[in-house]
């Protein structure tokens, strides 16, 4: 929801505006499932089930990946949600990748001159830190920097 309806008016407009009718599903679910007056209906199961569902949705809202770890994956039948979940997974892989690169760079920096020559065929990693004193390392950095 980008532009809620009631902005242009006073309380009266607000009241009849129905500004939340196109509200996003997450906003609606967190209200209708978890809030509102709770009384026992005739269908006895609903209290327990809705509480379980609420727990699941909370997990989903809190962390898709954590829910997955616990084997809760029912939303994956929904293509919109599952593609979003996959996107998130990719993001986390990229983050992890960055963290690993950073550690590698740090380790190589620490070892510095101790390294005689880095692994020759390891172009894609941050091997430059270990090879900085060799001509090969310098030329590699120069080549990569050409795109500046």
């Amino acid at each position, binding site marked *: 929801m980008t532009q809620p309806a009631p902005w242009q008016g006073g309380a009266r407009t607000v009241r009849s505006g129905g500004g939340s*009718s196109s509200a996003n599903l997450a906003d609606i679910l*967190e209200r209708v499932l978890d809030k509102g*007056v709770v009384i026992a209906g005739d269908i006895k199961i609903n209290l327990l*089930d*809705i509480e379980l569902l609420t727990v699941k949705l909370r997990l989903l809202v809190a962390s898709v990946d954590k829910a997955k770890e616990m084997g809760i994956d029912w*939303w994956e*039948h929904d293509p919109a949600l599952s593609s979003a979940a996959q996107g998130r997974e990719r993001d986390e892989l990229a983050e992890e990748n960055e963290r690993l*690169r950073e550690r590698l760079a740090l380790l190589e920096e620490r070892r510095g001159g101790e390294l005689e020559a880095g692994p020759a065929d390891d172009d894609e990693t941050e091997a430059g830190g270990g090879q900085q004193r060799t001509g090969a390392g310098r030329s590699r950095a120069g080549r990569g920097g050409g795109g500046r």
Partner: protein
Amino acid sequence: MSVDEGALARYVYAVARPFDPAPLAGLTGVGGHPVEAVAHRGLLAVVSPVPLREFDEAALKAKLEDLGWLERVARAHHAVVDAVMPLAAAVPLRLATVYRGEERVRAALDEDRAVFERALDRLSGRLEFGVKIYADPGSRGEPEPAPAAPAGAEPGESPGRAYLRRRREQRRRRDDSWQVAAALVERVDAALREWADAMARHRPQDAALSKAPGENVLNAAYLVAEDDAEGFLRTAARLRDEAPEGTRVEVSGPWAPYSFAGLDRAGEPA
């Protein structure tokens, strides 16, 4: 008439003080069934028939796991509640409160009369607004350089050092964004509470579900008297327009006061 007639249950959306139900004509609820009013001794339940087959214990258990079904029911529930709110003092019920027939709805109004009366006293003439704050470090200033690119190395600086420096700068920008967002949360909350009777925090929404960019750092609901709604929204609009770079304020509503309806259940059997 048919065998199915007997298999219709009543789904209750909201309970209100008595009002003229004429404007409900034509309104449909869950499954497209017509919305009806059940008036009983000073209270009025807004209901619609639903097939018991779809809402009995076994069916409900299975259906609640079906996000498509859940979304349809949740939106229908919400739409009926929204339609009722301008007509009368009313409180929304939780999703899927179902009775076997109209007589059972009347009995429930009697049994839980105290709950409804208290909620109606507390909430009538009040609206709920949702306020979310997002921190979006990626949106600030210059784009973050790709960490793997050796570009940006200063003369004599090793690629490893350059990499670490860039990472430190990136992290500092990110930390700044968090601090700015945290300060904004306090400022927004303090300003909005001036107009609100109560505030409730919802769990921050995950981007996977809401698809909103940035990290949701505040997901709050404010209970606002109708007379204060204009001031509340004016203040919220100002805060939204003044939100620092890298942060975003979103306001939704008006909602029925869902987030405040169940708050005085303490001490009552569930």
